[in-house]
């Protein structure tokens, strides 16, 4: 008689993997996201579609797009368009996004523009053109950000009324504050004059010292009266006239004004120690003590153009001559 036949049923592999969930080697969405972030770390300049294709060929385009959009909204990545090929690139955002929590998107745009300006700061009108925001909205946002101590305004020395905005913890650039010679946007002319006289006196003393030994010859005397700008900077810093640190460039600007006064001359020599040229300075006498013409009143007369043989201003009754001849 016949026994019943049992047929084993086995699961049959599907010919194609389903688009949802299971993909390729069984990656989940989170794993794809992690892989993308890894890739963006490997290519800090950005990844584009091609790189994603080669890396994860099995992932569906819709999945990639969804993940990337999520990353964008989470502010973890930035999207750029390449200039030449017009391709889209994604790259990791460099800065931590933690401090921007709690601000809304318009403020984020303004913050990004100000950040980009770096330590030179950016003007109110320029922010408006870049962000295309309304003037009143922009002012509200700027006040809010200032209140949150995220940005600050610095008044520029070139135009006193103009304010530039920059991030709170940045030092303003020299072109804005004017450098060491400006304090509170005022040019400190007395400080410059004091330093001017001080440098000249230092160089004079050096020359005097050099002249004390005339027997060694004029060449030695001349070379001994040179001082380099670094040495002068050192001497002035030791005198503690200024409260802030004087750099060699600052001293060189002062020494340049002395050169233009005609009191000192500069020569560039190569120093044995450092590479490149070292500027050295020494006092020089003018080749003419004073022009002969300035020793008579006519040489410095303020009304010389009106002076003549007739009229109110004449040499015969000139008051300046009267004073000079007494």
């Amino acid at each position, binding site marked *: 008689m016949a026994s019943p036949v049992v047929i084993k049923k086995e699961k049959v592999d599907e010919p194609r993997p389903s688009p949802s969930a299971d993909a390729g080697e069984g990656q989940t969405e989170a794993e794809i996201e992690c892989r993308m972030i890894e890739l963006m770390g490997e290519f800090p300049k950005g990844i584009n579609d091609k790189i994603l294709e080669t890396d994860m060929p099995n992932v569906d385009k819709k999945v990639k797009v969804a993940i990337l959009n999520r990353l964008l909204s989470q502010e973890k990545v930035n999207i750029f368009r390449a200039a030449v090929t017009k391709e889209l690139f994604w790259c990791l955002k460099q800065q931590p996004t933690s401090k921007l929590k709690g601000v809304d998107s318009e403020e984020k745009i303004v913050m990004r523009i100000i950040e980009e300006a770096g330590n030179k700061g950016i003007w109110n009108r320029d922010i408006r053109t870049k962000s295309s925001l309304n003037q009143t909205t922009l002012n509200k946002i700027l006040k809010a950000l200032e209140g949150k101590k995220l940005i600050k305004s610095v008044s520029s020395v070139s135009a006193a009324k103009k304010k530039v905005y920059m991030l709170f913890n940045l030092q303003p650039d020299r072109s804005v504050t004017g450098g060491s010679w400006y304090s509170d946007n005022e040019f400190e002319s007395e400080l410059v004059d004091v330093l001017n006289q001080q440098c000249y006196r230092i160089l004079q003393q050096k020359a005097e010292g050099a002249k004390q030994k005339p027997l060694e010859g*004029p060449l*030695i005397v001349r070379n001994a009266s040179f001082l380099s700008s670094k040495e002068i900077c050192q001497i002035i810093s030791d005198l503690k006239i200024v409260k802030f640190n004087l750099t060699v460039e600052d001293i060189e600007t002062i020494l340049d004004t002395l050169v233009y006064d005609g009191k000192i001359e500069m020569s560039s020599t190569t120093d044995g120690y450092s590479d490149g040229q070292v500027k050295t300075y020494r006092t020089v006498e003018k080749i003419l003590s004073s022009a002969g013409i300035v020793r008579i009143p*006519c040489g410095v007369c303020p009304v010389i153009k009106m002076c003549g043989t007739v009229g109110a201003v004449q040499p015969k009754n000139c008051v300046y001559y009267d004073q000079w001849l007494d």
Partner: protein
Amino acid sequence: MPPFTLGHFSQVCCQLLNHYFGEIVGQVGAYLLRRGHRPLFDIPCATGLSIAEVKKALAVMIQHNLVKFEASERNNNIAEYSIIHHNVYCLLRYPKYLYMIKRIYGTSEEILLEILLNLGQASASNVIFQSANRLKEANDDSEFSDPSALHKSFLKLAQDNFIIRCPKLADNANIQKVPTLEVEEKEKFTVPHLEIGPIAKLLKENATQLGEHGDSEVIWRVNHERFDVELRNVILVNAAARRVDATAGELYHLILKLWRECSNPDSPTTNALSFNVIKDAVRKNEGSSPVLLEHFEQYLRVLYEDTSSLIIKVGDAGGGQFVLNYSTVFENLACATLDSIVLERFGSKALRLFRLTRIQKFMEQDQMQNIAMIPAKEAKMFTYKLLEHNFLQIKELKKGTSNFAPVKSFILFHVDLPQVARTALEASYKGLFNAMVRQMHDLTDNKRLLDKHARLETLLETLRGEGLPEDELAYLSDSMTAAEKSLVSRIHSMNDHLTLGQTQADDTILILESYLKFSSMT
């Protein structure tokens, strides 16, 4: 004829002619300065003088090398007279010439030069004769000084080119109505053979005039160009002494002498001197200080490395070749003069701006105030003041082209050195003229008082010589009150002050004129 249409230089010349030669010569001179070349018959019509006076005035001026004549272009038979401007101006410098000659040589040469300046043009024998007379009077000697010593001095002056032969009548002069004068190049400084014997004889006889003498055809005059070179050298040596020290000045003086001996005086650059030649000269010179001998190479090196271009090294042959380029060194001196004028008139900040613009050639207003480190308001004020007085000039560069909108333009400041030098030169002439006018005015105002004082002084001198007792002299001198005497002394001191001022103004004029002359040569 009021000189209000004459330029400042011509006014100065007028004033000098009036002062030294009197009014008639002054008037003729002013007319010629105004009009240039004029024949004889124009002058009396314009000046209102008689023709005899005009002829005499012209003769005096020609004798003193102030006027020259040449045949007119339109009509060969008429002579036109014109003023030699430089020689008239050099009337101012005669005291300087005497001082220089005394410093370089000695008293006998100074007397020779003084006599020659007084005579204008004279033959060698005449000059020697008159100088011997003058020395005799001054020394109150009954014995005369030997004229052969004076002859030697004359030769020295001719050798160093301080005096030069005047042109004589050309060979074909007899056939022309207007004679031409010429002199050969190589004969300009050669002294002809003089006969001292007759001069000595006349001196013994206390004669006042030298009669006929052998070389009366050979006439000499003062060589103004040579004296100008000497005056310039003084300025250069002072500059060298200021820059380094007095020994460097000594060395530079020697080198200038060597350059003068080997180069053409009219060229803007001297010929090159080699190091060895200079070294030999230093060693041979008896007056060299021991410091100079010891450190000679160092001094030379310091001088040619200096930025004032007093010496320029052009090559290495013979240990080093050195030249002097007059145009660069006088440019530096002219710049120093202009700097000094700006400093005294406007202040040190203005000087800084002026030098900055001059050194950097073209600058914008903002750049100027940043580099010069002067506050903005002050910088602008000084810049525009300098612009107003023509020390700075403006160049405008337009940026962009547009037919509608106003175009932004750059305004650049620069210093046009020849122009500024010419302005300063004119101002100096004006200052000099003013000083002269003031001096003349002071003297004429107080003429009566000064004359009385002079008469009194001469009277006292003669009476003292004749042995009058002191109390009588004191009685006479009381005829002038103490106040008058103090006034007279005050007038004298004012006069000296003004003369000194004129000399100093002349220094500036020399530097600026030399700069303009040499810069136009190159």
